[in-house]
């Protein structure tokens, strides 16, 4: 039989055991929580320092760069003839003969460019272009001196923009302005604003048509009435 004294003794000993257990428990919790708290502090410090910010590489849209060989030859032929402000594109339709020259016409109203080649051919353009630049200096001088019909008409703010060498991505294919041949517009496929490239920025209202003569040709018409021809071009790979 437990006397009162025994019960008192038992109760107090059990209370002391309970308190000791609680102290151990608190210590265990503190030991377990310390590394977690430390990790949280470190993470907070890194976060405030911006270590976790995700800044994806911003790759601006890059217009296709026509670097190597064939494309460069074509553009070279035209670039030499194009001045910064007022010249329309010069067709570099050349043949092997040195005598052939590109005809350049500029409209007064807009920067429409009509290219016509005396002898349309897909021959060695670079040579011709070089020769073209050399051959008819007078014509070029005239083109230079003539007032720019650089009004693209589609973009009144940059009047000569549509006179420049244009390109566009159509259905995943790259089309570059081309100066060979005469083509007949067939079906309307969209406006300049619909296709990434030069015309989207400068001539959004220009109308794009397929050509009856070739599926690789796209005709761009401006509201002023002028038009240019784009030809499907295979971009060289970056490995070249």
């Amino acid at each position, binding site marked *: 039989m*437990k006397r*009162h004294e025994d*019960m008192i003794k038992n*109760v*107090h000993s059990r*209370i002391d055991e309970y308190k000791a257990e609680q102290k151990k428990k608190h210590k265990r919790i503190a030991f377990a929580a310390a590394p977690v708290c430390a990790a949280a502090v470190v993470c907070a410090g890194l976060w405030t320092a911006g270590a976790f910010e995700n800044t994806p590489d911003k790759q601006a849209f890059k217009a296709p760069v026509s670097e190597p060989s064939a494309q460069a030859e074509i553009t070279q032929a035209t670039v030499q003839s194009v001045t910064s402000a007022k010249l329309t594109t010069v067709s570099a339709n050349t043949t092997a003969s040195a005598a052939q020259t590109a005809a350049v016409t500029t409209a007064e109203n807009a920067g429409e460019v009509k290219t016509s080649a005396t002898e349309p051919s897909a021959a060695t353009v670079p040579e011709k272009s070089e020769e073209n630049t050399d051959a008819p200096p007078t014509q070029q001088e005239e083109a230079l001196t003539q007032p720019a019909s650089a009004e693209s008409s589609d973009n009144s703010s940059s009047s000569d923009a549509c006179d420049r060498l244009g390109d566009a991505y159509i259905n995943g294919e790259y089309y570059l302005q081309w100066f060979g041949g005469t083509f007949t517009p067939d079906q309307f496929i969209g406006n300049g604003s619909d296709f990434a490239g030069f015309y989207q920025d400068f001539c959004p209202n220009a109308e794009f048509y397929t050509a009856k003569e070739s599926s690789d040709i796209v005709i761009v018409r401006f509201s002023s009435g002028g038009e240019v021809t784009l030809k499907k071009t295979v971009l060289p790979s970056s490995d070249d």
Partner: protein
Amino acid sequence: MDNGASSYRRFRDNGDDSGLDDIIIEYSDGLILYLSSIVGNIYSAEELAEDTFVLLGTKKPLFKGKSSFRTWLYSIGRNLAIDWLRKCSRHKTVPIEETESLPDYENVIEEAYIQKEEKLAIHRAMRSLKSEYQQVLWLVYFEEMSNKEAAEIMRKSVRSVESLLYRARKSLRSQLEMEGFDNEKT
């Protein structure tokens, strides 16, 4: 006189361990006998009474003073007893060597707590009654609690306690008559 509230206040607020000791001395016997009416085992009742005091010492629940300290203490003890019964309902075991001395042990406590011989006989007769009858009779008749206090401890309505008390007395009278006890007060 119920000094438990002041003793508990001394213990809880001031950290005076003697307050808890006073509580144990004053209430342990009555609590044991009451819990015995619930669990039907004096040894278990003693352990549960000790658990009740340990709970006061560790958790230090707040005594709000809405009832008497004794009522509040007996409620805590009863809750522990009910929980114990739930755990041990299927595994109720008593050591064989203790069973023979069970009535004697309880007699010792009875005699120490219940001074009057008449009441001793009644209490011994109560052992054969149902647990609920024992509880209500103990609280009302031996602890001299009001029906309201008994209802609070047993978590019943006052009306239920009154009804229970009526049936318990009737049953006790029958038991006493069987034993040849003559007491008009019961």
